[in-house]
């Protein structure tokens, strides 16, 4: 068990290197340094200026292996090594567009993003699991049928339609919420209400339907019949037996949802003008600011790797039947 956890923790090291390699290939290799420099300077840049930027950023070095350099510098004095050091030490440098320090930008954007995503994630998980347990309790009745129908209908609406429709109907027409904006501290609540509500509605249908499927699959197992034969009450069976045995799909789903959460908050922050990381990332996409993008990809990947590690460890805790060979 301990050996497994240590092995699994060490496994994140190649993962981080893999992410560095992918970001390197996407953002550094596939775009020629000249094009990048030209984008920073504008259309009418002359060759001397471009050469200056290329030398300043070290884009004239070889990609992976420097033949001219002596000894260890053969590997160290390359663009890939520079890229790796930049990411691994969290010295992301300055934005290619606004020349702001990226580390500071990220620290500043973190709080607004978290005030949006944490309520969505926590509320969504609690509400959907409670609702789907209730539906599983009333399985086969009209209530069950209608909840499933409504869930499927909710799932079939595009996120853009939720956001545009919510903004148009609830904020613009009925004036229940502010359309756009953000405030620091406790005042942010009124601006966050509508995005959180929209994200909850968006996620609820799929989650409830999925968890219901998982619970119903467990309810047909033999151990549930045994529990019923022992005379246990239905709610005890659901809460103690079914819920525990459904932990693996729930855990998988929860961690799987985190990147999609990130994607959702990209759009939500953009539409509602919340100055978080999602908004910053879309700005970077629009201006093709590769330094900000690769930093965001790297941080997202680090968080995901940590979550992945936690899931695999919790697998062994919730299901002792699983042995990792």
């Amino acid at each position, binding site marked *: 068990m301990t050996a497994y956890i240590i092995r699994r923790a060490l496994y994140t090291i190649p993962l981080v290197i893999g992410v560095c390699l992918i970001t390197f290939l*996407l953002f550094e290799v596939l775009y020629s340094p000249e094009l990048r420099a030209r984008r920073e300077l504008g259309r009418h840049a002359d060759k001397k200026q471009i050469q200056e930027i290329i030398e300043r950023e070290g884009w004239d070095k070889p990609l992976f292996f420097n033949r001219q350099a002596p000894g260890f510098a053969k590997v160290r004095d390359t663009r890939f090594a520079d890229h790796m050091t930049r990411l691994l030490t969290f010295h992301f440098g300055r934005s290619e567009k606004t020349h702001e320090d990226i580390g500071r930008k990220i620290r500043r954007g973190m709080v607004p993003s978290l005030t949006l995503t944490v309520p969505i994630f926590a509320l969504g998980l609690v509400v959907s699991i409670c609702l789907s347990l209730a539906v599983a309790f009333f399985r086969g009745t009209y209530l069950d049928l209608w909840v499933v129908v409504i869930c499927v209908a909710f799932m079939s609406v595009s996120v853009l339609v939720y956001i545009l429709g919510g903004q148009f109907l609830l904020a613009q027409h009925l004036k229940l919420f502010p359309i756009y904006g953000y405030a620091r501290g406790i005042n942010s609540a009124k601006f966050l209400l509508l995005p959180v509500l929209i994200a909850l509605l968006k996620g609820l249908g799929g989650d409830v339907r999925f968890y219901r499927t998982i619970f119903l699959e467990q309810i047909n197992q033999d151990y549930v019949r045994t529990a019923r034969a022992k005379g246990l009450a239905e709610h005890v069976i659901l809460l103690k037996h079914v819920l525990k045995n459904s932990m693996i799909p729930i855990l998988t789903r929860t961690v799987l949802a985190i990147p999609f959460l990130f994607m959702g908050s990209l759009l939500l922050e953009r539409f509602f003008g919340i100055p978080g990381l999602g908004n910053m990332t879309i700005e970077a996409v629009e201006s093709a600011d590769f330094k900000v993008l690769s930093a965001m990809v790297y941080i997202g990947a680090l968080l995901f790797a940590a979550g992945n590690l936690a899931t695999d460890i919790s697998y062994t805790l919730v299901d002792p039947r699983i042995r990792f060979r």
Partner: protein
Amino acid sequence: MSETTPQTTPFAESKARSLWGDAWRRLRRNRLAMVCLGVIAVYVAVGILDMMPVRMKTAAGVKWAPVIDVVFDKAVGECDKEESYVPPGTGRHLLGADIQGVDVLYKTMKGVRVALILGGVTALISIPLGLLFGMIAGYFGGFIDDVVVYVYSTLACIPGILLLIALMTVMENGLLQLCVALGVTGWVGLCRLIRGETLKLRESDYVLAARALGAGHARIIFVHILPNLFHIVIIVFTLGFSGIIMSEAVLTYLGVGVKAGTISWGMMISQAKMELSRSPSVWWQFAAAAAALFILVLAFNVFGDALRDALDPKLRVGGRTE
């Protein structure tokens, strides 16, 4: 045989048919599923009509154009062209017209083709990848598992939308490029679920029994494990199909989707953002695209759900009838 053993009549009855025949019989009985299948068929028909060229006589001469173009040319004609933002029901525009005076119903029907191609081609790329890698990783474990998990974890680590955007900027905008990008990023979710389920199935009694009887790895994987993964594939496919069509809308909105000239529902929705905030708001293009998207995705979700109930023997045992 069923006459001699009256107690096992239901089992004997279901034994007499194949799994798929049995599933189809159950599906036929589900009226809602049949309605949804009909809706999907209508969409597919519209998509096919859009791909079939016929000869069309125009002022400039004879040219080949899709059936839908010909029909709309006859029905709507040139009468209301040049007039922007015609509300629904006025003139010959059933659902109104957009800023350039193009009929909204025409645009909505043109969007079907893009949606169907996207969903189909992407599924063809991502499902075999996810299924194969997931089963191999879960079943063999060890080094193979490590490699597969390494590849997909590295891919999954990168937030999907960013990976899609990066791939699309490399490949330029376009329908086929979008399919490839969605397929390459889309197999990871399926693979992870399949691997997790295979890990559980590997320890199950019937797999142990098959192994004890001397069944080879290929036989165990394809005969004993694969059929028990179908319900996951179907759930993921239906959710994925809708997800793909919806991703198109999001990516096109962000400017990294289909080419600028292509008519798709995503393009219509992104045009609608400006239209909604006009002072008498122009809502019909948004409503038409949203409704077309909603109905197709809903039909796929309901039909996939019914298909799963019909195909999945484990849910079939008790499930709803209890």
